[in-house]
């Protein structure tokens, strides 16, 4: 670890020297590894991020802008990978030798790479490059940290939200005088408001992916656990608290939502979206990433959804909390990378951090408090309606195999409404599956 720190310091010294003598610097190519799709035809020549839209457009324009503006003479060679296969391919690069200089990574996956020494520690680099880690919201910084060391630049928080059809809420009598939706503040209120909605509109109160593909309800259940003051995984990532009284309270609520017919259990991700956009459900539980997309649909006038609003995930128990994950930038460890290449990679990451606001235009929450507090962020559509989500966001502690843990949980959890498994049995099965994975981690 000390050796790594020394290397990164040397790299940074190299960067500063290069910046000072930019004219003499040789062109360095940064290999940039990411998902978010390909949109070269539309944004290949856009050098100003402010002129781009959507995840793909904005990140493409940011890379172009860095290549055009940086004083190191560095260029960016972007390699785009299918989202579903991204981590398989990234892992493969360590073996094939074409290790990228900068790569995108989810916070939930970071421990798998960091704990195997596959990422360059960035703490000292940030300090010297002038990246202020104190400006990151706590959940995002926690996501970027493993074993007490920062390994990534957090770039956004994507959390669960409630996306609301205000016309249907008005029909159900669930709108406050100030125009905000009346949302539940306790499990009892959720069921009562759901019933009221169903009786007055004849439609589903909530649309949610319920078909064991995305685990949307597990994220909801995890949020309810945090709201009751229980961490599903302990801070050291070694023990699980799933089969607990709090777990049962939350799972019983989820079961009641399906039993009462407030949620349609037959919908997958795309089906839930269609139900919401077609005005067949009052609320959809989905992430920050769809805000702009739903807003566009509502404004188009072609969808049944006309009056769209966003809300933080309701706090049904004592503590406001919501599940979140994070996109972040890492520098994969590569012994053959030259100091110049490392310096260019660090400069690119710093540039991305400096332009964090541009990324928040995607709908993701910014992880920089200074951006969240800025008037330009507040002027983006709907952002003020869910700004608090950034401070309520909770991430699982940095444990290895988080994806496996998540998958193990949602298979058993979905059985509650898909096969009628009792919540207590489902939780016991989840506890056993997760403990099996945690034992493997040790």
């Amino acid at each position, binding site marked *: 670890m000390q050796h790594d720190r020394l290397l990164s310091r040397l790299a940074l010294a190299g960067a500063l020297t290069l910046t000072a003598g930019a004219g003499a610097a040789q062109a360095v190519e940064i290999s940039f590894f990411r998902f978010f799709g390909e949109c070269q035809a539309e944004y290949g020549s856009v050098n100003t991020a402010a002129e781009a839209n959507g995840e793909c457009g904005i990140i493409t324009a940011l890379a172009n802008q860095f290549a055009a503006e940086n004083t190191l003479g560095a260029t960016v060679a*972007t*390699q785009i990978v*299918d989202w*579903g296969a991204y981590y*398989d391919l990234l892992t493969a690069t360590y073996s094939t030798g074409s290790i990228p200089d900068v790569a995108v990574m989810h916070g939930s996956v970071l421990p798998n790479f960091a704990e195997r020494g596959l990422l360059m520690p960035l703490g000292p680099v940030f300090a010297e490059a002038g990246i202020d880690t104190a400006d990151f919201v706590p959940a995002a910084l926690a996501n970027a940290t493993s074993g007490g060391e920062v390994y990534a630049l957090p770039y956004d928080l994507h959390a669960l939200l409630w996306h609301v059809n205000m016309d249907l809420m008005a029909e159900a009598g669930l709108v406050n005088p100030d125009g905000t939706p009346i949302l539940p503040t306790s499990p009892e209120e959720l069921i009562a408001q759901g019933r009221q909605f169903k009786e007055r509109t004849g439609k589903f109160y909530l649309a949610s992916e319920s078909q064991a593909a995305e685990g949307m309800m597990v994220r909801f259940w995890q949020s309810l656990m945090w709201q009751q003051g229980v961490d599903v995984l302990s801070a050291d990532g070694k023990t699980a608290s799933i089969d607990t009284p709090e777990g049962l309270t939350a799972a019983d609520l989820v079961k009641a939502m399906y039993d009462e017919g407030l949620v349609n259990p037959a919908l997958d991700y795309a089906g839930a979206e269609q139900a919401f956009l077609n005005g067949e459900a009052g609320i959809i539980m989905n992430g920050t990433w769809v805000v702009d997309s739903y807003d566009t649909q509502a404004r188009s006038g072609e969808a049944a959804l006309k009056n769209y609003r966003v809300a933080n995930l309701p706090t049904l128990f004592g503590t406001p909390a919501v599940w979140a994950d994070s996109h972040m930038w890492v520098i994969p460890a590569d012994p053959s990378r030259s100091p110049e290449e490392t310096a260019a990679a660090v400069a690119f990451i710093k540039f991305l951090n400096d332009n964090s606001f541009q990324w928040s235009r995607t709908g993701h929450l910014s992880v920089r408090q200074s951006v969240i507090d800025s008037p330009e962020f507040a002027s983006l559509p709907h952002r003020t309606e869910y700004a608090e989500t950034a401070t309520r966001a909770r991430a699982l502690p940095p444990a290895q195999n988080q994806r496996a843990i998540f998958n193990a949980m949602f298979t058993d959890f979905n059985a509650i409404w898909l096969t009628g498994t009792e919540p207590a049995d489902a939780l016991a099965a989840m506890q056993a599956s997760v403990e099996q994975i945690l034992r493997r981690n040790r």
Partner: protein
Amino acid sequence: MAAGRGPGRLSDRLILGATTAFAVLWLIPIVWVVAMSLKPNAVLMRSTAGLIPAPFTLENYAGIVERATVPTWLMHSLIVAVSMTALVLILSSLAGYAFARLDFPFRRTLFVLVLAGLMVPEQAVFIPLHTIMSTLGLHNTYTALVLPRLAVPIGVFLMTQFFRAVPKELEEAAALDHASRLTIFLKVMLPLSVPALTTLGLFTFIYAWNDYLWPLVSATQADRYTVTVGLASIQSNFAFSEGLGAVMASAVFASLPIVLLFLVFQRFIVAGVAMGPGK
């Protein structure tokens, strides 16, 4: 006679009717895919129902065709698929002939070992294979994409069975004319095995063209992508809801060469299925 043919005709009609019904049933998803590929993504986000592409758009296909990288991906796929097919045909026919006709030590044992290869799932050898290719420094080359795919037990088995069925008299006649073993193989056996070779070749080509996982982890540089990996890479994160039309267009686009191949060679493919290892 007429009474005898009556039920026959009826059963023929029933079979024809059932076949048609199944064919239509199986065609519906394909028609649905094509219909979705011709609709705007924003419309698909609201509804995926309907087999008629209205409103109609070609923007999903334009999105593929206007990418400068697509011809490169197609070329990579073509090079990999053609070379893999040619080499598999050469190796399988040679091995098949040897197992069927030549006498050599441990022939039976070796044949059983080859057949045992049928039982090893591809995933089981994936990591060792990847490590071997890394050690040899072959990743991101055509060699890495083709070489591990040349051992095709089913191909060897198919050709062995085929050569075994060829009457020995044909070979003996050639031998009487002083033809060498190689001449017999090239001039007598290979021409006879054209249907089997065509079938094996087509299946190998289709397999190579559709291959995704191995090219994904071996060709890790974007300029080495094959068409399947390339088309997957251009999707947005939530492509299954926000970019469904583009995904469907990719699927149609990538399968066009295979569909054309099928239309041209369908007689051989059908014969190949009928001839399969079950017989």
